[in-house]
């Protein structure tokens, strides 16, 4: 259910690492909890993110959630499609619903992220 090749954090975000680039999105559990996404507020290319700090917001009809950076780095790319189709976060959270790509500043931070199995246990205990 949660792709095995990704890493996850406690804020229900996933990370796909390719070299020193990380792609970030929110998990299937998170999109289900949120409901249909209507707006996503993302940073701009070139912005610096610090792990643990908020980098944006994601809104559904009934709620607003902050997005927390799972890793530190510089924003390389943001998913512009989300401006017109925020609902792809719901329909394809691990694919078309990706939010930002970062150039990692500290690959060591990956160690503290969870594997798919660890994340599944984490969700099971939280729910």
């Amino acid at each position, binding site marked *: 259910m949660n792709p095995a090749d990704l890493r996850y954090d406690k804020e229900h975000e996933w990370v796909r690492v390719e070299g020193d680039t990380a792609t970030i999105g929110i998990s299937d559990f998170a999109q289900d909890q949120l*409901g*249909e996404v*209507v*707006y996503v*507020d993302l940073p701009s290319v070139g912005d610096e993110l610090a792990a643990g700090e908020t980098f944006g*917001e994601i*809104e*559904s*009809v*009934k709620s*607003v959630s902050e997005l927390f950076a799972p890793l530190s780095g510089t924003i390389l790319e943001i998913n512009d499609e989300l401006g017109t189709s925020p609902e792809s976060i719901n329909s394809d959270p691990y694919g078309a619903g990706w939010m930002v790509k970062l150039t990692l500043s500290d690959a060591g931070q990956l160690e503290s992220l969870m594997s798919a199995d660890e994340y599944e246990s984490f969700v099971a205990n939280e729910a």
Partner: protein
Amino acid sequence: MTEGLSRTPLYEEHLALGARMVPFAGFEMPVQYAGIIDEHRAVRSSAGIFDVCHMAEFRVFGFEAFDALQRIVSNDLHKIDEMGKAVYTVMCDETGGIIDDLIVYHTGDLEYLIIANASNRAVDAAWIAAHLPEEVEFVDESDRTGLIAFQGPEAVRIITELTGEEPPARFRIAEARLDGSIPVLLARTGYTGEDGVEILCATSDAPAVWKLLLSYPEIAPCGLGARDTLRLEMGYPLHGTDMDRSIDPISAGLSWVVSLKKGEFIGSDVLAKIKEAGPERRLVGLTVSEGVPRHGYPVLHEGVEVGTVASGTFSPTLEHGIATAYIPSALAEPGTCLEIVVRRKTVSAVVTRPPFVTATSLSA
């Protein structure tokens, strides 16, 4: 979360459908099933049903019933002299503050049915009962009455099929039997802007009515989330959010249900003065350029705060934010440009006269 909360007769049905439950007016209610936007769109394009069993129903009976109610509510009950007719009204206290908004149905000779907000059941019952002469009977029927709202362009066709006859005309109520067996009252009223009926039944029959309706694939179960987005698209006020006891109906945009010429009613003298002078602040609709306006967000005019958002949401039909807010009457002209502070951003908002959505099965 479930401590001390009541459940409607449809509680198990909601769980079986995988509804997300939330506390509302002392009840555990479904906020959504498939999702607010999906449910909203189902009502606008096909049909949806809502569990509103938590709402209050009161029966008032007696020779003096008409005269007594005429002094309690703001609208003119002569509008429902004809048997079976219904009228939307507010009920004010002596200061002109809105205790609740409700619908009064003329259900029988010397008899009226009142449907009121779940959140105000106790206050309404106490107020009405206290203002009725002894000879007029007041019965709180809420516990033994189930209420399911059935709304959407397909609703009237389906209810005709289920009862074997056309439902009553708009803003009327009549007896019927569903599927040849379940006795109900059908009220051609609603809170969505779509055509349809509100179905009253015995509490014990509510699950059967619900299941019967869900046997139609065109009908989606809908929760409180969609109920809110639907009514806000129409500009229908919600007591507790768009108005409360501290607000008069003139300021709340409800002059149209205040009949000052019918004679005195509780609060009429205060309302007459407000109408004469013009209210200082008015409830207006706001169309938002980006982001979702939410209750409490500041409303600005040229950088100065002039109000706060009362109701706010994302309109699934229009695909942008809509809201209501009390602002100075001088700024209440449709087209006036204001701003709303949405957390860290300030977005533009234009004063709009509701309804925000005009193409519905009711307006057709």
